Protein backbone atom coordinates (compact mmCIF):
# COMPACT_ATOMS: atom_id res chain seq x y z
CA UNK A 1 0.00 0.00 0.00
CA UNK A 2 1.29 3.47 -0.81
CA UNK A 3 2.06 5.66 2.20
CA UNK A 4 -0.27 8.58 2.91
CA UNK A 5 2.49 11.15 2.61
CA UNK A 6 5.90 10.64 1.12
CA UNK A 7 8.37 13.47 0.68
CA UNK A 8 11.11 12.54 -1.75
CA UNK A 9 14.56 14.20 -1.90
CA UNK A 10 13.01 17.64 -1.59
CA UNK A 11 15.23 20.64 -2.27
CA UNK A 12 14.04 24.16 -1.54
CA UNK A 13 16.02 27.37 -1.83
CA UNK A 14 15.24 30.93 -0.85
CA UNK A 15 16.63 33.96 -2.62
CA UNK A 16 18.05 36.50 -0.21
CA UNK A 17 20.06 39.69 -0.61
CA UNK A 18 23.22 37.72 0.14
CA UNK A 19 22.61 35.00 -2.42
CA UNK A 20 20.56 31.86 -2.76
CA UNK A 21 20.14 29.84 0.42
CA UNK A 22 19.52 26.13 0.05
CA UNK A 23 17.23 25.71 3.05
CA UNK A 24 16.13 22.15 2.33
CA UNK A 25 18.74 19.92 0.72
CA UNK A 26 17.46 16.43 0.16
CA UNK A 27 14.78 15.96 2.79
CA UNK A 28 12.80 12.76 2.73
CA UNK A 29 10.10 11.41 5.01
CA UNK A 30 7.34 8.82 4.93
CA UNK A 31 4.12 8.92 6.88
CA UNK A 32 2.04 5.73 6.92
CA UNK A 33 -1.71 5.86 7.42
CA UNK A 34 -2.87 6.08 11.01
CA UNK A 35 0.55 6.92 12.40
CA UNK A 36 2.12 9.93 14.03
CA UNK A 37 5.41 11.08 12.56
CA UNK A 38 7.54 13.48 14.57
CA UNK A 39 9.92 15.75 12.68
CA UNK A 40 12.70 16.93 14.99
CA UNK A 41 15.43 19.45 14.45
CA UNK A 42 17.09 22.55 15.82
CA UNK A 43 15.80 26.04 15.10
CA UNK A 44 16.63 26.98 11.55
CA UNK A 45 17.12 23.43 10.28
CA UNK A 46 14.23 23.84 7.83
CA UNK A 47 11.31 22.29 9.71
CA UNK A 48 8.93 25.15 8.98
CA UNK A 49 10.07 25.39 5.37
CA UNK A 50 9.39 21.67 4.99
CA UNK A 51 5.80 22.08 6.22
CA UNK A 52 5.26 25.09 4.01
CA UNK A 53 6.61 23.24 1.01
CA UNK A 54 4.22 20.35 1.65
CA UNK A 55 1.26 22.70 1.96
CA UNK A 56 2.37 24.93 -0.91
CA UNK A 57 2.58 28.07 1.20
CA UNK A 58 6.27 28.81 0.84
CA UNK A 59 7.19 32.44 1.53
CA UNK A 60 7.99 34.89 -1.24
CA UNK A 61 11.32 34.23 -2.90
CA UNK A 62 11.34 30.52 -2.07
CA UNK A 63 11.27 27.88 -4.76
CA UNK A 64 11.28 24.10 -4.95
CA UNK A 65 14.31 22.99 -6.95
CA UNK A 66 13.85 19.22 -6.91
CA UNK A 67 11.91 16.41 -5.32
CA UNK A 68 8.32 15.29 -4.88
CA UNK A 69 5.60 15.54 -2.27
CA UNK A 70 3.41 12.48 -2.75
CA UNK A 71 0.07 12.70 -0.99
CA UNK A 72 -2.26 9.74 -1.52
CA UNK A 73 -0.32 9.00 -4.70
CA UNK A 74 -0.51 12.52 -6.15
CA UNK A 75 2.42 14.92 -6.43
CA UNK A 76 1.27 18.08 -4.64
CA UNK A 77 4.09 20.14 -6.11
CA UNK A 78 2.52 20.22 -9.56
CA UNK A 79 -0.87 21.39 -8.23
CA UNK A 80 -1.91 24.96 -8.94
CA UNK A 81 -2.92 27.33 -6.15
CA UNK A 82 -6.58 26.91 -7.10
CA UNK A 83 -6.34 23.12 -7.13
CA UNK A 84 -4.64 23.12 -3.73
CA UNK A 85 -7.37 25.34 -2.32
CA UNK A 86 -10.12 23.37 -3.94
CA UNK A 87 -8.98 19.81 -3.34
CA UNK A 88 -6.27 19.63 -0.68
CA UNK A 89 -6.10 22.33 1.95
CA UNK A 90 -8.53 21.89 4.85
CA UNK A 91 -10.54 19.23 3.05
CA UNK A 92 -7.76 16.63 2.99
CA UNK A 93 -4.84 18.20 4.84
CA UNK A 94 -5.62 20.03 8.06
CA UNK A 95 -3.15 22.51 9.47
CA UNK A 96 -2.49 23.39 13.11
CA UNK A 97 -0.39 26.54 13.19
CA UNK A 98 2.35 27.25 15.65
CA UNK A 99 1.23 30.09 17.85
CA UNK A 100 -2.41 29.98 18.94
CA UNK A 101 -2.19 33.60 20.07
CA UNK A 102 -1.53 34.87 16.59
CA UNK A 103 -3.13 32.35 14.28
CA UNK A 104 -6.68 33.69 14.52
CA UNK A 105 -7.77 36.97 12.99
CA UNK A 106 -8.36 39.28 15.97
CA UNK A 107 -11.26 41.22 14.44
CA UNK A 108 -13.66 38.34 13.76
CA UNK A 109 -15.59 36.01 16.03
CA UNK A 110 -14.13 32.52 16.30
CA UNK A 111 -17.26 30.97 14.80
CA UNK A 112 -17.17 33.27 11.79
CA UNK A 113 -13.62 32.22 10.98
CA UNK A 114 -14.05 28.49 11.50
CA UNK A 115 -17.34 28.34 9.63
CA UNK A 116 -15.85 30.31 6.76
CA UNK A 117 -13.29 27.58 6.18
CA UNK A 118 -15.99 24.90 6.42
CA UNK A 119 -18.22 26.71 3.97
CA UNK A 120 -15.58 26.36 1.28
CA UNK A 121 -13.85 23.15 2.18
CA UNK A 122 -16.16 20.83 4.11
CA UNK A 123 -17.20 17.69 2.22
CA UNK A 124 -20.47 17.94 0.31
CA UNK A 125 -23.18 16.09 2.23
CA UNK A 126 -26.01 17.09 -0.08
CA UNK A 127 -27.27 19.93 2.08
CA UNK A 128 -27.26 23.54 0.99
CA UNK A 129 -27.53 27.04 2.43
CA UNK A 130 -28.94 27.34 5.89
CA UNK A 131 -29.19 23.61 6.48
CA UNK A 132 -25.53 23.12 5.52
CA UNK A 133 -24.48 25.89 7.87
CA UNK A 134 -26.56 24.42 10.68
CA UNK A 135 -24.80 21.09 10.22
CA UNK A 136 -21.44 22.80 10.25
CA UNK A 137 -22.26 24.57 13.51
CA UNK A 138 -23.38 21.24 14.92
CA UNK A 139 -20.15 19.53 13.89
CA UNK A 140 -18.02 22.36 15.22
CA UNK A 141 -19.80 22.44 18.58
CA UNK A 142 -19.32 18.68 18.80
CA UNK A 143 -15.64 19.02 18.00
CA UNK A 144 -15.18 21.81 20.53
CA UNK A 145 -16.89 19.69 23.17
CA UNK A 146 -14.57 16.84 22.27
CA UNK A 147 -11.64 19.26 22.57
CA UNK A 148 -12.86 20.11 26.08
CA UNK A 149 -13.41 23.77 25.27
CA UNK A 150 -15.69 25.14 27.99
CA UNK A 151 -19.15 26.29 26.82
CA UNK A 152 -18.78 25.08 23.23
CA UNK A 153 -22.18 26.52 22.27
CA UNK A 154 -21.22 30.09 23.11
CA UNK A 155 -17.56 29.75 22.16
CA UNK A 156 -18.33 30.38 18.49
CA UNK A 157 -19.80 33.79 19.38
CA UNK A 158 -16.66 34.95 21.17
CA UNK A 159 -13.56 36.70 19.88
CA UNK A 160 -10.06 35.12 19.91
CA UNK A 161 -8.79 37.37 22.73
CA UNK A 162 -11.48 36.01 25.04
CA UNK A 163 -9.80 32.60 25.16
CA UNK A 164 -6.67 31.48 26.97
CA UNK A 165 -3.67 30.14 25.04
CA UNK A 166 -4.51 26.50 25.69
CA UNK A 167 -8.15 27.03 24.73
CA UNK A 168 -7.14 28.78 21.55
CA UNK A 169 -4.91 25.86 20.64
CA UNK A 170 -7.89 23.56 21.19
CA UNK A 171 -9.96 25.80 18.90
CA UNK A 172 -7.31 25.51 16.21
CA UNK A 173 -7.12 21.75 16.53
CA UNK A 174 -10.91 21.61 16.19
CA UNK A 175 -10.60 23.88 13.15
CA UNK A 176 -8.02 21.62 11.55
CA UNK A 177 -10.39 18.66 11.94
CA UNK A 178 -13.53 20.53 10.89
CA UNK A 179 -13.49 19.47 7.26
CA UNK A 180 -12.59 15.83 8.03
CA UNK A 181 -9.07 15.66 6.57
CA UNK A 182 -7.01 12.46 6.44
CA UNK A 183 -3.73 14.18 7.25
CA UNK A 184 -3.11 16.84 9.89
CA UNK A 185 0.10 18.84 9.88
CA UNK A 186 1.01 20.45 13.18
CA UNK A 187 3.75 23.11 13.36
CA UNK A 188 5.11 23.05 16.92
CA UNK A 189 1.60 23.46 18.29
CA UNK A 190 2.59 23.20 21.92
CA UNK A 191 5.66 25.45 22.00
CA UNK A 192 3.77 28.53 23.14
CA UNK A 193 1.99 26.68 25.96
CA UNK A 194 3.03 25.87 29.50
CA UNK A 195 4.02 22.32 30.34
CA UNK A 196 0.77 21.10 31.89
CA UNK A 197 -1.34 22.46 29.05
CA UNK A 198 1.13 20.98 26.59
CA UNK A 199 0.70 17.56 28.16
CA UNK A 200 -3.10 17.75 27.96
CA UNK A 201 -2.99 18.82 24.31
CA UNK A 202 -0.63 15.96 23.44
CA UNK A 203 -2.89 13.42 25.12
CA UNK A 204 -5.83 14.84 23.22
CA UNK A 205 -4.00 14.68 19.88
CA UNK A 206 -3.01 11.07 20.53
CA UNK A 207 -6.67 10.15 21.18
CA UNK A 208 -7.93 12.06 18.16
CA UNK A 209 -5.63 10.23 15.76
CA UNK A 210 -7.29 6.94 16.69
CA UNK A 211 -10.76 8.39 16.92
CA UNK A 212 -10.86 10.22 13.57
CA UNK A 213 -8.64 7.82 11.63
CA UNK A 214 -6.06 10.54 11.09
CA UNK A 215 -2.41 10.59 10.35
CA UNK A 216 -0.40 13.30 12.01
CA UNK A 217 2.76 15.05 10.94
CA UNK A 218 4.08 16.72 14.07
CA UNK A 219 6.97 19.17 13.91
CA UNK A 220 8.85 19.98 17.09
CA UNK A 221 12.28 20.58 18.54
CA UNK A 222 11.48 18.65 21.69
CA UNK A 223 12.44 14.97 21.97
CA UNK A 224 10.30 14.68 25.09
CA UNK A 225 7.20 15.53 23.07
CA UNK A 226 8.22 13.05 20.37
CA UNK A 227 8.69 10.27 22.90
CA UNK A 228 5.30 10.98 24.41
CA UNK A 229 3.32 11.33 21.19
CA UNK A 230 4.89 9.88 18.08
CA UNK A 231 5.18 6.45 16.45
CA UNK A 232 7.88 7.40 13.98
CA UNK A 233 10.64 9.92 14.06
CA UNK A 234 12.56 11.87 11.49
CA UNK A 235 15.58 13.94 12.50
CA UNK A 236 16.53 16.86 10.30
CA UNK A 237 19.88 18.62 10.35
CA UNK A 238 20.77 21.60 8.13
CA UNK A 239 17.99 20.82 5.67
CA UNK A 240 18.75 17.09 5.39
CA UNK A 241 17.11 14.06 6.88
CA UNK A 242 19.84 12.43 8.92
CA UNK A 243 17.92 9.66 10.66
CA UNK A 244 14.41 8.26 10.32
CA UNK A 245 12.75 5.28 11.92
CA UNK A 246 10.36 4.09 14.61
CA UNK A 247 10.55 6.23 17.77
CA UNK A 248 11.44 3.35 20.12
CA UNK A 249 14.27 2.14 17.91
CA UNK A 250 15.76 5.58 17.40
CA UNK A 251 15.52 6.69 21.01
CA UNK A 252 16.96 3.42 22.33
CA UNK A 253 19.76 3.10 19.83
CA UNK A 254 20.32 6.43 18.09
CA UNK A 255 22.49 5.67 15.08
CA UNK A 256 23.51 9.05 13.70
CA UNK A 257 26.12 10.99 15.70
CA UNK A 258 23.87 14.07 15.51
CA UNK A 259 20.91 12.23 17.02
CA UNK A 260 23.16 10.93 19.77
CA UNK A 261 24.50 14.42 20.44
CA UNK A 262 20.98 15.88 20.52
CA UNK A 263 19.74 13.24 22.92
CA UNK A 264 22.76 13.78 25.13
CA UNK A 265 21.70 17.42 25.45
CA UNK A 266 18.27 16.54 26.77
CA UNK A 267 18.00 17.60 30.42
CA UNK A 268 16.58 14.21 31.44
CA UNK A 269 19.61 12.37 30.10
CA UNK A 270 22.43 14.79 30.69
CA UNK A 271 24.03 15.12 34.08
CA UNK A 272 24.78 18.78 33.55
CA UNK A 273 23.99 21.41 30.98
CA UNK A 274 25.66 20.34 27.74
CA UNK A 275 25.44 21.39 24.11
CA UNK A 276 26.85 20.51 20.75
CA UNK A 277 30.00 22.52 19.95
CA UNK A 278 30.06 24.58 16.78
CA UNK A 279 27.22 25.97 14.74
CA UNK A 280 24.84 24.81 12.04
CA UNK A 281 26.41 25.56 8.64
CA UNK A 282 24.90 28.57 6.87
CA UNK A 283 22.51 27.56 4.09
CA UNK A 284 24.27 30.18 1.98
CA UNK A 285 27.60 28.33 2.15
CA UNK A 286 27.15 24.62 2.61
CA UNK A 287 30.33 22.59 3.18
CA UNK A 288 31.11 19.64 0.95
CA UNK A 289 30.49 16.17 2.33
CA UNK A 290 28.53 15.54 5.51
CA UNK A 291 26.87 18.70 6.85
CA UNK A 292 27.48 17.62 10.44
CA UNK A 293 31.16 16.69 10.01
CA UNK A 294 32.48 19.97 11.46
CA UNK A 295 30.69 19.38 14.76
CA UNK A 296 30.90 15.58 14.83
CA UNK A 297 33.15 13.88 17.39
CA UNK A 298 33.46 10.82 15.20
CA UNK A 299 34.22 12.54 11.91
CA UNK A 300 36.78 10.95 9.58
CA UNK A 301 38.57 12.54 6.60
CA UNK A 302 36.20 10.88 4.10
CA UNK A 303 33.21 12.61 5.81
CA UNK A 304 34.37 15.96 4.43
CA UNK A 305 34.86 14.67 0.89
CA UNK A 306 31.57 13.24 -0.32
CA UNK A 307 27.99 13.29 0.91
CA UNK A 308 27.37 10.23 3.05
CA UNK A 309 25.04 7.61 1.53
CA UNK A 310 21.68 6.56 2.95
CA UNK A 311 22.15 3.39 4.98
CA UNK A 312 20.19 1.11 7.28
CA UNK A 313 21.32 0.93 10.91
CA UNK A 314 20.96 -2.19 13.07
CA UNK A 315 18.04 -0.49 14.90
CA UNK A 316 16.11 -0.48 11.63
CA UNK A 317 16.41 3.29 11.15
CA UNK A 318 17.53 4.92 7.91
CA UNK A 319 20.70 6.88 8.57
CA UNK A 320 22.77 9.26 6.51
CA UNK A 321 26.25 8.46 7.84
CA UNK A 322 29.38 6.74 6.50
CA UNK A 323 29.60 4.55 9.63
CA UNK A 324 26.79 2.36 8.33
CA UNK A 325 27.66 2.31 4.65
Amino acid at each position, binding site marked *: MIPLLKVDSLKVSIRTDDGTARVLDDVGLTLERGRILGVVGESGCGKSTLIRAI*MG*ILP*KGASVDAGHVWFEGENLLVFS*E*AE*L*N*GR*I*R*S*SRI*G*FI*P*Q*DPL*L*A*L*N*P*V*FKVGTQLL*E*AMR*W*HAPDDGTRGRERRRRHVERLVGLLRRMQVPDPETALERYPHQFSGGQRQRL*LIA*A*SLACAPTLVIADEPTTALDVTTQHQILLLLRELVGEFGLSLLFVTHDFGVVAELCDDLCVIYAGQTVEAGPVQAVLQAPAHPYTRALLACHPDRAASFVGIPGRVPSPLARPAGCQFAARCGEAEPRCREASPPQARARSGADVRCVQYA
Partner: protein
Amino acid sequence: MKPILARLSRDLPAMLGLGVVVVVLLLAIFGPWIAPHPEDASASHLLRRLKPPSADFPFGTDNLGRDILSRVILGARGALQIALTVVVVAMLIGVPLGLVAGYRSGWLSETIMRVTDVVLAIPQLVLALALAQLLTPSLESAMLALSLTYWPFFTRIVYAETRRLSASLFVDALRGVGAASPRIVFLHILPNALSPVIVRATIGLGFTILVAAVLGFLGMGATPPAPDWGLAIADSRTYLPRAWWYATFPGLAILITVMGFNLLGDGLRDIVDPRLRRSR
Protein backbone atom coordinates in the same frame (compact mmCIF):
# COMPACT_ATOMS: atom_id res chain seq x y z
CA MET B 1 -18.97 50.97 19.14
CA LYS B 2 -20.02 51.58 22.72
CA PRO B 3 -16.54 51.52 24.24
CA ILE B 4 -15.33 53.94 21.57
CA LEU B 5 -18.06 56.42 22.44
CA ALA B 6 -17.42 55.94 26.14
CA ARG B 7 -13.71 56.64 25.71
CA LEU B 8 -14.39 59.53 23.40
CA SER B 9 -16.66 61.11 26.00
CA ARG B 10 -13.69 61.47 28.37
CA ASP B 11 -11.80 63.47 25.75
CA LEU B 12 -13.12 67.03 25.89
CA PRO B 13 -11.64 68.39 22.62
CA ALA B 14 -12.81 65.29 20.76
CA MET B 15 -16.33 65.70 22.16
CA LEU B 16 -16.25 69.34 21.06
CA GLY B 17 -15.23 68.16 17.60
CA LEU B 18 -17.97 65.55 17.56
CA GLY B 19 -20.48 68.25 18.56
CA VAL B 20 -19.37 70.53 15.73
CA VAL B 21 -19.50 67.67 13.22
CA VAL B 22 -23.01 66.72 14.33
CA VAL B 23 -24.19 70.34 14.07
CA VAL B 24 -22.68 70.71 10.58
CA LEU B 25 -24.30 67.42 9.56
CA LEU B 26 -27.70 68.61 10.82
CA LEU B 27 -27.29 71.94 9.02
CA ALA B 28 -26.36 70.11 5.82
CA ILE B 29 -29.42 67.89 6.01
CA PHE B 30 -32.02 70.37 7.29
CA GLY B 31 -30.43 73.62 6.00
CA PRO B 32 -33.25 74.72 3.71
CA TRP B 33 -35.75 74.39 6.57
CA ILE B 34 -33.56 76.01 9.23
CA ALA B 35 -32.27 78.97 7.24
CA PRO B 36 -34.36 82.12 7.85
CA HIS B 37 -34.19 83.13 4.17
CA PRO B 38 -33.76 79.91 2.17
CA GLU B 39 -34.66 81.72 -1.06
CA ASP B 40 -31.40 83.70 -0.72
CA ALA B 41 -29.53 80.79 -2.25
CA SER B 42 -30.17 82.44 -5.59
CA ALA B 43 -32.39 85.49 -5.09
CA SER B 44 -30.99 89.02 -4.76
CA HIS B 45 -32.40 92.07 -2.96
CA LEU B 46 -30.42 95.05 -4.07
CA LEU B 47 -32.29 97.43 -1.72
CA ARG B 48 -30.81 95.90 1.40
CA ARG B 49 -27.26 95.21 0.26
CA LEU B 50 -24.35 95.19 2.75
CA LYS B 51 -26.42 95.74 5.87
CA PRO B 52 -24.50 95.17 9.12
CA PRO B 53 -25.64 92.42 11.50
CA SER B 54 -29.05 93.17 13.01
CA ALA B 55 -31.98 91.31 14.51
CA ASP B 56 -33.38 90.54 11.06
CA PHE B 57 -30.04 89.53 9.58
CA PRO B 58 -27.81 88.29 12.46
CA PHE B 59 -24.76 87.89 10.17
CA GLY B 60 -25.62 90.92 8.00
CA THR B 61 -26.23 90.87 4.25
CA ASP B 62 -23.88 90.60 1.29
CA ASN B 63 -23.32 92.68 -1.83
CA LEU B 64 -26.54 91.39 -3.38
CA GLY B 65 -28.59 91.91 -0.22
CA ARG B 66 -28.69 88.19 0.61
CA ASP B 67 -28.83 87.02 4.23
CA ILE B 68 -25.33 85.78 5.10
CA LEU B 69 -26.60 83.54 7.93
CA SER B 70 -28.84 81.71 5.47
CA ARG B 71 -26.03 81.36 2.96
CA VAL B 72 -23.63 80.05 5.62
CA ILE B 73 -26.22 77.45 6.67
CA LEU B 74 -26.98 76.51 3.07
CA GLY B 75 -23.25 76.27 2.33
CA ALA B 76 -22.80 73.42 4.82
CA ARG B 77 -24.41 70.93 2.46
CA GLY B 78 -22.09 71.77 -0.42
CA ALA B 79 -19.01 71.69 1.79
CA LEU B 80 -19.91 68.29 3.22
CA GLN B 81 -20.84 66.94 -0.20
CA ILE B 82 -17.44 67.88 -1.56
CA ALA B 83 -15.61 66.53 1.45
CA LEU B 84 -17.46 63.21 1.54
CA THR B 85 -17.21 62.64 -2.20
CA VAL B 86 -13.52 63.45 -2.29
CA VAL B 87 -12.64 61.29 0.71
CA VAL B 88 -14.75 58.34 -0.47
CA VAL B 89 -13.32 58.47 -3.99
CA ALA B 90 -9.78 58.84 -2.61
CA MET B 91 -10.39 55.82 -0.36
CA LEU B 92 -11.80 53.78 -3.24
CA ILE B 93 -8.63 54.46 -5.20
CA GLY B 94 -6.09 54.46 -2.40
CA VAL B 95 -7.16 51.55 -0.19
CA PRO B 96 -7.17 48.79 -2.86
CA LEU B 97 -3.87 50.04 -4.24
CA GLY B 98 -2.36 49.92 -0.76
CA LEU B 99 -3.69 46.41 -0.19
CA VAL B 100 -2.29 45.10 -3.46
CA ALA B 101 1.06 46.82 -3.01
CA GLY B 102 1.34 45.56 0.54
CA TYR B 103 0.34 41.96 -0.06
CA ARG B 104 2.22 41.40 -3.27
CA SER B 105 5.83 42.18 -3.87
CA GLY B 106 7.72 42.80 -7.05
CA TRP B 107 7.34 45.31 -9.83
CA LEU B 108 3.60 45.94 -9.37
CA SER B 109 4.02 46.79 -5.72
CA GLU B 110 7.09 48.90 -6.42
CA THR B 111 5.33 50.81 -9.21
CA ILE B 112 2.32 51.60 -7.04
CA MET B 113 4.42 52.82 -4.15
CA ARG B 114 6.78 54.93 -6.27
CA VAL B 115 3.83 56.65 -7.96
CA THR B 116 2.36 57.22 -4.51
CA ASP B 117 5.62 58.75 -3.32
CA VAL B 118 5.77 61.07 -6.30
CA VAL B 119 2.22 62.33 -5.78
CA LEU B 120 2.84 62.72 -2.04
CA ALA B 121 6.00 64.72 -2.73
CA ILE B 122 4.00 67.53 -4.37
CA PRO B 123 1.89 69.66 -2.00
CA GLN B 124 -1.72 68.64 -2.42
CA LEU B 125 -2.99 72.19 -2.96
CA VAL B 126 -0.50 72.90 -5.74
CA LEU B 127 -1.32 69.66 -7.53
CA ALA B 128 -5.07 70.18 -7.11
CA LEU B 129 -4.76 73.74 -8.46
CA ALA B 130 -2.89 72.51 -11.51
CA LEU B 131 -5.44 69.78 -12.15
CA ALA B 132 -8.43 72.06 -11.58
CA GLN B 133 -6.92 74.61 -13.96
CA LEU B 134 -6.62 71.95 -16.68
CA LEU B 135 -10.29 71.07 -16.37
CA THR B 136 -13.11 73.57 -16.78
CA PRO B 137 -13.79 75.38 -13.47
CA SER B 138 -16.72 73.69 -11.80
CA LEU B 139 -17.54 71.89 -8.59
CA GLU B 140 -17.09 68.51 -10.28
CA SER B 141 -13.62 69.24 -11.54
CA ALA B 142 -12.63 70.60 -8.13
CA MET B 143 -13.80 67.34 -6.53
CA LEU B 144 -11.99 65.28 -9.16
CA ALA B 145 -8.79 67.25 -8.65
CA LEU B 146 -8.96 66.84 -4.89
CA SER B 147 -9.71 63.10 -5.11
CA LEU B 148 -6.84 62.51 -7.51
CA THR B 149 -4.46 64.21 -5.12
CA TYR B 150 -5.70 62.73 -1.84
CA TRP B 151 -5.62 58.96 -2.50
CA PRO B 152 -1.86 58.49 -1.84
CA PHE B 153 -2.40 59.19 1.86
CA PHE B 154 -4.64 56.13 2.09
CA THR B 155 -2.31 54.02 -0.02
CA ARG B 156 0.60 54.77 2.32
CA ILE B 157 -1.32 53.88 5.46
CA VAL B 158 -2.92 50.73 4.07
CA TYR B 159 0.38 49.63 2.53
CA ALA B 160 2.18 49.81 5.87
CA GLU B 161 -0.62 47.98 7.70
CA THR B 162 -0.87 45.30 5.03
CA ARG B 163 2.87 44.73 5.06
CA ARG B 164 2.75 44.18 8.81
CA LEU B 165 -0.36 42.00 8.72
CA SER B 166 0.62 39.82 5.77
CA ALA B 167 3.63 38.63 7.75
CA SER B 168 1.40 37.68 10.68
CA LEU B 169 0.68 34.10 11.52
CA PHE B 170 -3.05 34.25 10.96
CA VAL B 171 -2.43 35.03 7.30
CA ASP B 172 -0.14 32.01 7.11
CA ALA B 173 -2.82 29.94 8.79
CA LEU B 174 -5.44 31.22 6.34
CA ARG B 175 -3.25 30.20 3.42
CA GLY B 176 -2.80 26.85 5.09
CA VAL B 177 -6.52 26.23 5.36
CA GLY B 178 -6.91 27.14 1.71
CA ALA B 179 -8.16 30.71 1.53
CA ALA B 180 -7.58 32.42 -1.83
CA SER B 181 -5.54 35.64 -1.89
CA PRO B 182 -8.40 38.08 -2.64
CA ARG B 183 -10.32 36.60 0.27
CA ILE B 184 -7.35 37.00 2.62
CA VAL B 185 -6.66 40.54 1.48
CA PHE B 186 -10.17 41.97 1.43
CA LEU B 187 -11.96 39.97 4.11
CA HIS B 188 -9.17 39.46 6.64
CA ILE B 189 -6.42 42.04 6.22
CA LEU B 190 -8.62 45.00 5.29
CA PRO B 191 -10.80 44.92 8.45
CA ASN B 192 -7.61 44.83 10.53
CA ALA B 193 -6.20 47.83 8.70
CA LEU B 194 -9.40 49.86 8.80
CA SER B 195 -9.02 51.88 12.00
CA PRO B 196 -6.13 54.10 10.88
CA VAL B 197 -7.99 54.59 7.59
CA ILE B 198 -11.06 55.85 9.43
CA VAL B 199 -8.93 58.26 11.44
CA ARG B 200 -7.23 59.56 8.33
CA ALA B 201 -10.61 59.92 6.58
CA THR B 202 -12.02 61.99 9.45
CA ILE B 203 -9.09 64.39 9.39
CA GLY B 204 -9.25 64.34 5.60
CA LEU B 205 -12.86 65.55 5.64
CA GLY B 206 -11.84 68.75 7.44
CA PHE B 207 -8.80 69.22 5.29
CA THR B 208 -10.78 68.76 2.09
CA ILE B 209 -13.33 71.38 3.16
CA LEU B 210 -10.46 73.80 3.65
CA VAL B 211 -8.83 73.04 0.29
CA ALA B 212 -12.19 73.13 -1.48
CA ALA B 213 -12.79 76.58 0.02
CA VAL B 214 -9.40 77.66 -1.28
CA LEU B 215 -10.28 76.39 -4.74
CA GLY B 216 -13.61 78.22 -4.52
CA PHE B 217 -11.81 81.38 -3.39
CA LEU B 218 -9.51 81.17 -6.39
CA GLY B 219 -12.46 80.67 -8.71
CA MET B 220 -11.77 77.03 -9.54
CA GLY B 221 -14.50 75.44 -7.49
CA ALA B 222 -18.14 76.30 -6.99
CA THR B 223 -19.61 78.85 -9.39
CA PRO B 224 -21.90 81.76 -8.38
CA PRO B 225 -24.60 82.00 -7.18
CA ALA B 226 -24.02 78.78 -5.21
CA PRO B 227 -23.78 79.48 -1.45
CA ASP B 228 -20.19 78.35 -1.15
CA TRP B 229 -18.08 79.47 1.80
CA GLY B 230 -14.87 79.95 -0.15
CA LEU B 231 -16.70 81.79 -2.92
CA ALA B 232 -18.35 84.11 -0.37
CA ILE B 233 -14.94 85.10 1.02
CA ALA B 234 -13.65 85.72 -2.50
CA ASP B 235 -16.65 87.99 -3.25
CA SER B 236 -16.23 89.85 0.01
CA ARG B 237 -12.73 91.04 -0.72
CA THR B 238 -13.91 94.15 -2.55
CA TYR B 239 -16.07 95.23 0.38
CA LEU B 240 -13.71 94.22 3.17
CA PRO B 241 -13.00 97.63 4.74
CA ARG B 242 -16.71 98.54 4.87
CA ALA B 243 -18.43 95.20 5.47
CA TRP B 244 -16.34 93.17 7.95
CA TRP B 245 -19.22 90.75 8.53
CA TYR B 246 -19.28 89.62 4.90
CA ALA B 247 -15.92 87.77 5.12
CA THR B 248 -15.97 87.01 8.83
CA PHE B 249 -18.93 84.67 9.12
CA PRO B 250 -18.23 82.35 6.16
CA GLY B 251 -14.61 82.32 7.35
CA LEU B 252 -15.66 81.33 10.85
CA ALA B 253 -17.85 78.59 9.36
CA ILE B 254 -14.82 77.14 7.58
CA LEU B 255 -12.60 77.51 10.63
CA ILE B 256 -15.04 75.88 13.04
CA THR B 257 -15.97 73.02 10.70
CA VAL B 258 -12.38 72.15 9.82
CA MET B 259 -11.37 72.36 13.47
CA GLY B 260 -14.30 70.14 14.45
CA PHE B 261 -13.26 67.39 12.05
CA ASN B 262 -9.63 67.67 13.11
CA LEU B 263 -10.42 67.47 16.82
CA LEU B 264 -12.64 64.46 16.24
CA GLY B 265 -9.99 62.82 14.09
CA ASP B 266 -7.31 63.42 16.72
CA GLY B 267 -9.57 61.97 19.40
CA LEU B 268 -10.27 58.88 17.30
CA ARG B 269 -6.60 58.43 16.63
CA ASP B 270 -5.81 58.57 20.33
CA ILE B 271 -8.29 55.77 20.90
CA VAL B 272 -7.27 53.65 17.93
CA ASP B 273 -3.54 54.09 18.32
CA PRO B 274 -2.53 54.84 21.91
CA ARG B 275 1.14 54.97 20.92
CA LEU B 276 0.53 58.31 19.23
CA ARG B 277 -1.34 59.79 22.20
CA ARG B 278 -0.18 63.27 22.99
CA SER B 279 0.47 64.24 26.56
CA ARG B 280 -2.03 66.79 27.67
